């Protein structure tokens, strides 16, 4: 917020679709390129100056860098912030399509966001007889 009286210049018009982070991104389902659910968007990561740092004129506007999941859901609900190393990121470059769901252009198999699923699959579910049986 500027302390001086001069009003802000209105935001420049942008080409393309305007996405409201709260309305169109947060808490939406994320699917990988095969349509397999990966996670829900638990939070978003923006580039830009650190919190409470002074913003100098001419600083580039923050951009969306990643979708977040993991412990960040807990801190989003109950307050606080996990250290950056604990954030599980899905880079924004991997997002191919934003609709009622977010579609990734990559397979979910290699993403960090899927490690709990893979661990439970490999250590528990796949070891129970019939765990890899195709129901159809």
């Amino acid at each position, binding site marked *: 917020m500027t302390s001086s009286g001069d009003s802000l210049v209105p935001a420049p018009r942008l080409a393309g679709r305007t996405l409201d982070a709260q309305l169109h991104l*947060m*808490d*939406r*389902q*994320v699917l990988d390129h095969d349509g*397999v*659910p*990966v*996670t*829900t968007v*638990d939070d978003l990561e923006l580039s830009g100056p650190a919190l409470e740092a002074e913003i100098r004129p001419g600083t580039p506007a923050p951009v969306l860098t990643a979708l977040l*999941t993991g412990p960040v*859901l807990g801190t*989003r*609900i109950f307050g606080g912030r996990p250290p950056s190393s604990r954030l599980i990121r899905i880079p924004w470059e991997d997002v191919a399509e934003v609709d*009622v*769901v977010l579609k990734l252009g990559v397979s979910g198999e290699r993403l960090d966001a899927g490690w*709990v*699923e*893979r661990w*439970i*699959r490999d250590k*528990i*579910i*796949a070891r*129970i007889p*019939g*765990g*890899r*049986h*195709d*129901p*159809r």
Partner: protein
Amino acid sequence: MKRLLGVALGILTAIGGFVDIGDLVTNAVVGSRFGLSMVWVVGVGVVGICLFANMSGRVAAASGRATFEVIRERLGARAGLANLSASFLINLMTVTAEIGGVALALQLASSVNYLLWIPVAAVAVWLVIWRVRFSIMENVTGLLGLTLVVFAVALFLLKPDWGSLAGQLAPAVPEHETFWTYSYYAIALFGAAMTPYEVFFFSSGAVEEGWSVKDLVQSRVNVLVGFPLGGLLSVAIAGCAAVVLLPSGIAVTSLSQVILPVAEGAGKLGLAFVLVGVVAATFGAALETTLSSGYTLAQYFGWSWGKFRRPAEAARFHLAMIVCLLVGLAVLATGVDPVLVTEYSVVFSAIALPLTYLPVLIVANDPQYMGEHVNGRAVNVLGMVYLVIILVASLAAIPLMIVTGAGS
């Protein structure tokens, strides 16, 4: 011809699948204490479940999104989590009640103590969820559940005085009951008819079976014909209790009393049918509620889910259901009376109704999700009316529970 068979099958499974342990117990309790004076509540409940099951099915078919994904997206993480906690716990209570119901019915059929049947029932539920294809699971339990029609047959064989039975249909509080117990059981009956898990299951089932907008006509027929006929089955259960138990002053507290009128009216053969029906109905509902607990968790957290995937491809979903079944087993192993769990679960279902139905109503009006299939005006008016009814029932439930000492 094939299409016609599909419709017929869908209707039959909707009838057979409508009744669960909550409907069985609550209708019998109400019939034995209030006669047929609460049939109107079943009517209100059936119209409500038709309305919202249809709506959530339409959301799932038009957008491919099941109910709890929608709840999380609309309410956000925090309110969504509060909703998940309440819905999940009540659903877990229903899982417990249904497995207990299967065990009690098997006890009646075999004279082996129900506590020994509980692990058998839970393992059977897990095996079906683990191995059996979704459509087969639905159709077999639904069709076997149809044998509950024997309640209607028994009602006729009991040769009641139809005139006086019809006279009970007017909503009125019987002399020996108070207005407060009447209202409490009205809410319980409403909760039993509109249990939220049916909506979770219905919308997730639509995704499981890969419905598109083209399948909506068939699903609408299934719901609009099947559920009201299932409601008639509920009324027959209450009717049997009203004819046999009400005059002798027996208030239902166990499953054997629920089926007693059938034994009296239709004899041993009737008893055999009703036992098959009760096992099928409670077993089917145990499957649906267990799946629903997996669906709600997976959809909130965005996990991969669905019986159409291999268990290994929906690992957390399957693990969650295994844990739920184990918790249900542990609760039942304490020796708590499954009928009591059922009576509480339907009242808590009534309390949680707005949590499920409000977000469904909101999203069914969202063109981003629904495209041209948003709610029409008539559906919205009816939906708003029901929202008011649901809110009143939800807010009144706990005070009434305290005032009446849970209906005693």
